[in-house]
């Protein structure tokens, strides 16, 4: 579903964000990308939805060669992807319903499809009863669930989450992670970049660890730190 081969990314300011990264993610996988801030997690995500362009290497997402994609085709790629961020990126002057519908309306979806899909998506994240509220009337967790509903409304095969729980307290974090798991169980490939150790250690999923732009470990059912169980926290 997602494939990176020898991908490097050097920003115009000379920073080497990614260095010869090779990674395969199969359909239906749930993958954590972990590592300290600035190790290239976000850069890798940005490459997948073509916000950034690799300096070298091949990137394939859902059969689309992203590294060769013309800018005119980028919208088509993004309709196959759902993306969720730490800061939710909701529109404060639109209700929950309107925020979710927005993703369909601006891609030219028919009103009938909007009326069918939006309630379905809101139901999935458990926000049907708050569809008329505005983002600032919601908790952080509910705002993130709105963002997830928006990311899912176009039925993407892949959901990319960049620090989805970075702004949330532990209980909201748990809520969001359970939701992502549910989405994954329905067959959506989920990639989560995070440095939330508790989340990673509790979930026991595939963990890809980045350090200085390189993949250093890639474990099925891994922990945040290599070979460490929950509770064994390294200081610093």
């Amino acid at each position, binding site marked *: 579903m997602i494939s990176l081969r020898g991908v490097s990314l050097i920003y115009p300011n000379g920073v080497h964000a990614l260095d010869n990264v090779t990674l395969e993610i199969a359909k239906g996988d749930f993958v954590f990308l972990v590592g300290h801030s600035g190790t290239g997690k976000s850069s890798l995500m940005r490459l997948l*939805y073509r916000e950034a362009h690799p300096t070298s290497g091949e990137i394939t997402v859902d059969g689309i060669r992203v590294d060769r994609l013309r*800018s005119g085709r*980028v*919208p*088509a*790629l*993004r*309709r196959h992807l759902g*993306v969720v961020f730490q800061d939710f*990126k909701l*529109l404060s*002057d639109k209700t929950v319903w309107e925020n979710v519908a*927005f*993703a369909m*309306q*601006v*891609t*030219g979806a*028919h*009103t009938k499809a*909007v*009326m069918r899909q939006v309630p379905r998506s809101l139901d999935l994240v458990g926000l049907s009863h708050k569809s008329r509220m505005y983002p600032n009337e919601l908790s952080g967790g509910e705002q993130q669930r709105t963002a997830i509903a*928006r990311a899912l409304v*176009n039925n993407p095969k892949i959901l990319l989450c960049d620090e989805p729980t970075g702004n949330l307290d532990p209980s909201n974090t748990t809520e969001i992670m359970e939701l992502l798991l549910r989405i994954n169980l329905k067959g959506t490939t989920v990639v989560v970049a995070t440095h939330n150790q508790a989340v990673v250690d509790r979930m026991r999923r595939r963990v890809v660890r980045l350090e200085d732009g390189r993949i250093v470990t890639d474990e099925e059912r891994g922990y945040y730190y290599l070979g460490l169980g929950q509770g064994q926290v390294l200081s610093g």
Partner: protein
Amino acid sequence: MDWGKVKFFLGEVLRNFTRNAGMQATAIGTVAITIVLLGVFLFVRGELTGLGTQLLDQIEISAYLSTDATPAQIASLRRLLAQDPRVVSVDFIPKKQGLAELRDRTKGAIDTSTLTENPLPDKLRVRVRVPDQVPAVAASVRRLSGVDNVVYGQTIVARLLQLGDVLRRVGIAVILVFFAVAGIIISNTIRLTVFARRREIAIMQLVGATNTYIRMPFICEGMLDGVVGALLAVGLLAAARATLWPRMVEALPWVAFNTTPVDVGAIAAELLLVGAAIGVVASWISVGRHLRT
């Protein structure tokens, strides 16, 4: 027709338009001023060229014939000139009629009764289709045998033609400057709305909206600026024509104003189109800058 889509789209445009009221008012005002100036300018130019054309239309070429020209020669000259596509009419004025006309024109200032002999030669009066062609036709008439001298308002024709030319050039320059100013102000207004909506644009790009779709509401907004400004201008111009114009005609009786009624609807439509065009072009440019990645 998917009315839900239309409603959503128009809602977005309207929200944009009302969000930045102060800036929109500035843009609309500038367009209005630009188009009022444009309208006044076009009007003044129209009047001046109208006056010029009136004068030019009265211009005729007098080809004085040599005294020894035979009637057959005169007839062939007339035929030859009548065949020229630039010539509207050729009239033969015998010297007797010429003298009568002179007497009429000078209203008795010249006492022709003291003349023992008619000093005027016979002449051909040639009218030309387009004023610009007068000098050329005059020159070719002068070359014909049997023609002694050719007279037309040489200096006034040259002056009027030159004046028309200068007016055209200045007019185009002035209009271009007006357009540039209005365009820049609309473009800045749109840039502000683009900036105010940068989050929305980012989200649209993220969920896969095409650049054309993202651009559309801003283009409509710019067009709305242009059209509303132009409507204001057309209203002002129409009011000015209805109230000031009759007074001006009255106050300046010696000016031969072109009083034929103008097609106000057509002019208004043109000005509206101009306004819309300024708006579309200006907003297209300023959104394009933002979308380039």
